């Protein structure tokens, strides 16, 4: 029972830095400059539907690519010998030690019109291709930056799958294909859902990746919100309204996502 008191600092922290700001966002979203109630800003969010759709679409692609790429990596990692796992896990984390902005800058140099890839293409005599400032580059940036967030939860779930379960599956006549689909995949579902959450949520609200790799013409919701607070159009009320709608949207998507996870393991 006493253990409960240890959570008090975190509770206080949550109230001050999560609940209060959320209430402030809601307050700003529903008020005008004078402080009066208005739904003007919330209804104005509707005109940015195409930006919402683009953000959702790009981050869905990025999440799907992350999942497809991370799943085999996580599986292989979890089946490795213990002493190797540590090293490999460190390699997965290694890029995260470097500053996020700097890594994205490096991509700018790689993808640029005179960047490394196009430079190599011209050396071998091929036509340079437009890589940077496309939505593909934005997706690449998201995948690159958020891939570890997919690998880690998948790995930690798969690591706990008992080897004997897999042995039992093959003992009872599963080939490797059905072992993966009927045993490993269902057991790793909690990892899949939390991995998707951890990639999708930051990807949908990113703004610096789309600014740096999208050339400013692939506007995402994050850019739009940033413009309202720090950018050219100073309108915190509209910014708060957009954030609120985005939050509601993410909540809906996450609820839908949780329907896929096993009955008693609802992860947010």
């Amino acid at each position, binding site marked *: 029972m006493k253990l409960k008191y240890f959570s008090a600092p975190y509770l206080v922290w949550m109230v001050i830095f999560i609940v209060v700001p959320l209430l402030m966002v809601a307050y700003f979203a529903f008020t005008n400059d004078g402080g009066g109630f208005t739904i003007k800003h919330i209804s104005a969010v509707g005109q940015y539907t195409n930006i919402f759709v683009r953000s959702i679409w790009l981050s869905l692609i990025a999440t799907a690519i992350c999942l497809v790429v991370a799943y085999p990596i996580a599986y292989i990692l979890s089946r490795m010998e213990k002493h190797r796992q540590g090293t490999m896990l460190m390699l997965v984390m290694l890029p995260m030690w470097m500053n996020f902005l*700097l890594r994205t800058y*490096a991509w700018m140099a790689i993808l640029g019109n*005179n960047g490394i890839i196009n430079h190599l293409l011209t050396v071998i005599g091929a036509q340079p291709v437009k890589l940077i400032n496309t939505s593909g580059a934005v997706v690449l940036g998201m995948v690159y930056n958020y891939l570890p967030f997919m690998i880690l939860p998948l790995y930690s779930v798969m690591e706990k799958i008992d080897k004997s379960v897999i042995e039992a599956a093959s003992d009872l006549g599963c080939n490797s294909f059905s072992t993966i689909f009927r045993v490993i995949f269902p057991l790793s579902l909690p990892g899949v859902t939390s991995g998707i959450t951890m990639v999708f949520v930051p990807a949908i609200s990113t703004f610096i990746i789309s600014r740096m790799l*999208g*050339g*400013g013409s692939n*506007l995402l919701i994050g850019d739009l919100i940033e413009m309202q607070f720090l950018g050219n159009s100073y309108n915190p009320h509209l910014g708060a309204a957009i954030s609120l709608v985005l939050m509601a949207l993410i909540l809906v998507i996450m609820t839908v996502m949780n329907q*896929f996870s096993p009955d008693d393991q609802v992860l947010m």
Partner: protein
Amino acid sequence: MKRYRRIFSLALSAVLFTSLLTGCSDSADSSAEDGTDAEGASEAQTLTVSDPDYYTRFKGEGLSINVYNWGEYISTGADEGTLDVNAEFTKLTGINVNYTNYATNEELYAKLKGGGAAYDVIIPSDYMISKMIKENMIQKMDFDNIPNFKYIMPNFRNLAYDPENEYSVPYTWGTVGIIYDETVVDIPEEEIDWDLLWNEDYADQILMFDNPRDAFAIAESLEGYSMNTEDPEELEAAARKLMKQKNIVQGYVMDEIFDKMGAGDALIAPYYAGDALTILEDNDSLNFVVPKSGTSLFIDAMCIPVGARQKEAAEMYINFMCEPDIAYANIDYICYSTPHQAAYDMLDEEVRTSPISYPDEQFIADKTTVFVNLSDEANRKMQDLWTEMKSAEDENTNTWIAPIFLILCVIVSIVTLIRRHIKSKKDIF
């Protein structure tokens, strides 16, 4: 304005071939023989101030002031033989300087408006100054504390943004022009004009300002409107013009112009004269032209925001920035044009006669426009048009996939729920 320059140079030089890191004062520094460290450098140059007593008033009180300036907009002593202006100020007066940067006027505005930050000296541009005066965000200065205001050229006093000159002390000015790669762009220099930014021959090689005010000004100038127009129809026409350009624009950027043009990633970009000159120093293939048809002229001036904690120290700092030696050190380092008579007289003949830094007065009078603050409606209109332009879909594919995916998800989850419901009922029996 060159917020990312150094960071990016570092990354680039590591990844690519050469370092882009420069200051434009290399040529001027060659006279200073030694100065391997900043200390030695500052001693090599003798700093004389007009009134030492004035500056030592607050010594020993441990004061500090918060200065908020554009990135790379002051002499930092990073290059050999140049002054570290803030360190000199602290040495002279005993007042510490907390120096931070912003990249756009709007960022500065948002920061001040958002509250929670108390700055003592800020350096906004013309139209932002009049906006801040109107919204009561900056305060009148005591010009008795700024005797060095006498050095400011008469034609930079009492300008439209601050008619009585009570709120601001001009720091720099400059024009906007076009920087382009003359080895590729096959158009004689005299014929270069804003329409180069719409030239489809250079599709995907053109950069554009990521800032509605500057971008609209270019489109408005091409359409023959005033750069300060508030007419909704003219704004819409300018937005359509920008929309036409969108297909051939490589990217909407601000400070990144510096790196992208320097690295040869783009061929054509609009840019501010001072920063452009800095790039030209290192790139023989680049050229900078101020369009003949007209351009905008900006003036950045030092102001004291309402809520400043150390007003007198701030005035002292502003006065210090107007010391001839300091003004010269700054202007020599950042390459913008100076409104400071004494600093101007110290410049090399070559710089003083440069048509880029100091265009002749006739051109300034006839062809340049200083931005004024637009009405709230016009600002909002411009903002909406800008967002609309930027978010317009150029690839029509895929827009319907996300909603369909969402609907699918909902259907699947409903099916799952129903299945679970049936299952749980079965379990009971």
